[in-house]
């Protein structure tokens, strides 16, 4: 077998024939990061002593959740039959929220490792990414991982993979990222099976940006794959979508620590640093050329990221608003998909309406804001963008229920998605029931194998952004997987449901729902609030209303006793301290009219724990 390469090919002077560019397509927790770690070790790219688990997942949250948010590229030396090769491993995000970023990473490769957990089989998102890879004409190397697990069923899933991409089950490699079994064979197979990149070394330079990361010390680090020509340090480069030009302060490759080089040639993958401070000036999918000898045509495929899910983010403590504002500004330096604008809520104070690619993007962003900036945040229920046409033909785009017009509405259109769900066939009934409840229309159903089925539905996006995935998981005992993509819009019978506390509307709890579901939302939210809001000195009616029509009501009975029975000599100090604590607690209350609502009630009412409750029942 091949040892690690004795001499590694030098960047900027590497024959494309010895370059192999590949990515790994895998579902969350199917072991991609562990396999990548093992490759770093085997090729000697990372010394044993520097190894930390999941080396490539740099952010804490990524490591904790075991998912990769931002991709990176690593150059690995590998020797086969006496020739040293340069392998570029391009790490891709595994989640459906980041489909566009995945597609750009794929476009930078000639081949893809299709990595599937030998105990679980392929999942819907992996399947979606596999389709993207095949559309990009990538050569696929099917691999079953975790074959060391007792529950592994390599024969079954090898047959499934072979059935999907064609070929023989015998050709499916079996590896264990954990023990290292089969990983050397995989590296050899990458060299043998993947085609080398092709391109014109003499043409004007064209490199595709597949990732763009903000670094506090270095500014934006842009990851590119050179297609034609070459890039050299100190050259002026130009972004073809904006025509903005920058000086190349540094160019190099990651191995995996950044190493400056004399440039990047055809087929090579590396990074650029220009001193730019905002990832929006270095957009994923854009083409880089040189100012001196610009290319006539871009590589194509560039799209502006489009936020799909909107949520209000509010600091629990109003004085944290400037911190949140600065934090969001910093985040957008590194996240071109994040958009935001200030908004005010009567109940929650000053905050921002933030647009995300999806729910995971929302959760990760919120978690990072809280962790990195020490903020306590309330996020309002996620919303999609509705297109509301008034009777006077004015068209409004509504991403916040409180902006929903109360006047005469001619038509409301809501965004739709086409969803693909993979699951063991015993759960078909449960899945169809769930999708039906969520206003889905069945598009088709195929058996992938004897006991695994692919179900396709067209659903309103609004129906899947909140708790759909949690429910799918709980109804399929964790086996169901989901992939979705935007699929136009449709006219729907939607209404706004308002929640009133003692007659005062609480904007944070308003929701836009289908008319048939308004009642259920009203009952759910009024019931939840009755549990969450502490009793006050007076009775508090809680109502749900569509316009002036009340559709559900609850009430919080007045508190009757709020007094400590005894207060003698030894109790006084303790009682005064309790009083101070209660006054401190009061600062965490939001006043809605005369009603004191604890911040916790907002968080709990707006969180999606309902899905978990249902799963428990």
């Amino acid at each position: 077998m091949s040892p690690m390469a004795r001499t590694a090919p030098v960047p900027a002077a590497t024959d494309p024939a010895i370059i192999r560019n590949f990515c790994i397509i895998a579902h969350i927790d199917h072991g991609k990061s562990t396999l990548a770690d093992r490759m770093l070790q085997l090729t000697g790219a990372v010394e044993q002593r520097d190894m930390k688990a999941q080396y490539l997942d740099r952010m804490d949250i990524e490591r904790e959740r075991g998912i990769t948010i931002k991709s990176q590229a690593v150059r690995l030396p590998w020797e086969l039959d006496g020739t040293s090769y340069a392998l570029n491993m391009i790490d891709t995000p595994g989640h459906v929220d980041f489909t566009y970023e995945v597609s750009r990473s794929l476009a930078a490769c000639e081949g893809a490792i299709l990595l599937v957990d030998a105990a679980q089989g392929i999942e819907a998102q992996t399947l979606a990414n596999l389709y993207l890879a095949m559309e990009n004409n990538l050569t696929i190397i099917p691999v079953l991982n975790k074959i060391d697990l007792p529950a592994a069923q390599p024969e079954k899933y090898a047959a499934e993979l072979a059935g999907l991409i064609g070929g023989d089950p015998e050709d499916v490699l079996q590896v264990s990222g954990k023990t290292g079994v089969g990983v050397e064979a995989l590296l050899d197979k990458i060299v043998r099976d993947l085609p080398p990149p092709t391109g014109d070394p003499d043409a004007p330079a064209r490199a595709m940006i597949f990732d763009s990361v903000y670094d506090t010390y270095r500014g934006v680090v842009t990851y590119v794959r050179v297609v034609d020509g070459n890039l050299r340090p100190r050259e002026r480069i130009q972004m073809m979508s904006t025509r903005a030009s920058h000086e190349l302060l540094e160019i190099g490759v990651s191995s995996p620590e950044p190493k400056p080089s004399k440039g990047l040639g055809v087929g090579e993958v590396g990074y650029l640093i220009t001193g730019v401070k905002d990832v929006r000036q270095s957009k994923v999918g854009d083409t880089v050329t040189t100012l001196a000898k610009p290319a006539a045509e871009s590589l194509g495929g560039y799209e502006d990221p489009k936020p799909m899910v909107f949520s209000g983010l509010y600091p629990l403590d109003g004085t944290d608003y400037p911190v949140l504002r600065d934090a969001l500004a910093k985040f957008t330096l590194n996240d071109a998909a994040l958009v935001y604008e200030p908004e005010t809520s009567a109940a929650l104070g000053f905050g921002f309406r933030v647009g995300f690619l999806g729910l995971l993007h929302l959760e990760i962003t919120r978690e990072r804001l809280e962790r990195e900036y020490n903020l306590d945040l309330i996020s309002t229920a996620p919303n999609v963008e509705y297109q509301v046409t008034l009777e006077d033909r004015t068209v409004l785009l509504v991403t916040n229920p409180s902006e929903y017009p109360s006047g005469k509405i001619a038509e409301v259109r809501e965004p739709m998605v086409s969803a693909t769900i993979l699951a063991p066939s015993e759960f078909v009934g449960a899945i169809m029931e769930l999708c039906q409840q969520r206003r889905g229309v069945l598009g088709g159903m195929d058996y992938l194998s004897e006991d695994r089925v692919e179900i396709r539905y067209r659903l309103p996006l609004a129906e899947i952004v909140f708790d759909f995935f949690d429910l799918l998981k709980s109804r399929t005992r964790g086996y169901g997987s989901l992939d979705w993509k935007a699929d136009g819009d449709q006219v729907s019978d939607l209404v706004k449901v308002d929640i009133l506390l003692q007659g005062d509307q609480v904007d944070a709890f308003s929701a836009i729902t289908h008319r048939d579901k308004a009642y259920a939302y009203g009952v759910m939210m009024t019931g939840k609030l009755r549990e969450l809001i502490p009793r006050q000195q007076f009775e508090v009616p809680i109502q749900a209303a569509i316009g002036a029509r009340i559709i559900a009501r609850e009430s919080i009975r007045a508190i009757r006793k709020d007094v400590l029975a005894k207060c003698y000599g030894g109790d006084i100090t303790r009682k005064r301290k309790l009083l101070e604590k209660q006054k401190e607690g009061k600062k965490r209350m939001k006043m809605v009219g005369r009603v004191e609502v604890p911040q916790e009630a907002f968080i709990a009412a707006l969180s999606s724990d309902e899905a978990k409750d249902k799963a428990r029942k």
Partner: protein
Amino acid sequence: MAPSTLPLGLPAPEDGSVPPAAVEGAGTRSFGLYVHIPFCAVRCGYCDFNTYTATELGGGASQDAYAGSVLAELDLGARVLTSSGFPDRELSTVFFGGGTPTLLPASDLATILRASTALWGLAPDAEVTTEANPDSVTPESLRILREAGFTRVSFGMQSAVPHVLAVLDRTHAPERVPQAVAWAREAGLKVSLDLIYGTPGESLEDWRTSLSTALSYEPDHISAYALIIEEGTRLASRIRRGQVAPIDDDDHADKYLLADEMLAQAGFQWYEVSNWARTPLDECRHNLAYWRGDDWWGAGPGAHSHLGGTRWWNVKHPRAYAQALDAGRSPAAGREILSAGDRSVEEVMLRARLSEGLPTDRLTPAGRRAIAGLIADELIQPAAAFAGTVVLSFRGRLLADAVVRRLLPD
């Protein structure tokens, strides 16, 4: 009654001295003495007071030697007051609490009272109370107390209903109470009865029974406390484990309503949220002194003291307490020196609980602005407010803590 958990405070000086500011205005404040007796025959499941059974106590802190330690602390107290420049003040009230003070021989209690009288003098109309368990007194012991100068005995009756007493781990037989009350009357002592309502398993009828039984003994004073589940007590853990039903504030409110109604009918007047007296002369002046911000020395383990805005508390364990005094040190474990702001918070917090009320001029401007709202919400008595005093309405007594929070908006 010293709670088991001591507050966090500043270190207390070894010589027991108090800052000069504590002396200011001492002439206008009454002076009282609290003596804590940290012994019980059995520890009750709901009790978090600083008290010990003989087996919990172990060696080095026997009940026999206890009176000697208290006498040593009283000597220290007299020295501290004199050297700090306090004017001579006779004791206007003395209160022996516990624990079960009557577990000590009556002669020990008498010795402590005589020693206090020798150090400070006892006002001619002084109120001298001891708490007692109905089953730890005899006609003889009560007579000894009266002869020594005690004027009042407060019996821990708690309930007249056996299954309620059982949940509270009270060991006395209900029929023991009238007997003890009769002996106290014979000895010439005033009688107060302590009742607890809202015990898990207690019905409204059970509570009515306890109230009417207590009233049938014709006491001079009744304290009725809602049961508080204190962390760390056996009852708290039984509730947590689901062995006993949790307490319910609405149930407490219903029972408070019933108590006030029955007590008023029997001619009792409330003078503090949880206390009722047959006549103003029967009010417990020692407790009133706490609520009015007067001075008192608290002797015994875990006892709290207050002198003009300085509060301190003694070490909890009888052994540590005895050791400190044996070594000639103050047994204080910690103290706090209240700021002007703290003192006015305490004043509002405590005086608002009294029927005599809190003068509105003791409030900050923001606090005074809350008064109109409290009248509108029927939490305070309008006529009293117009006359310049905050007095809780009936509804306000049940929501007294909320009223206090509204009176202290800053």
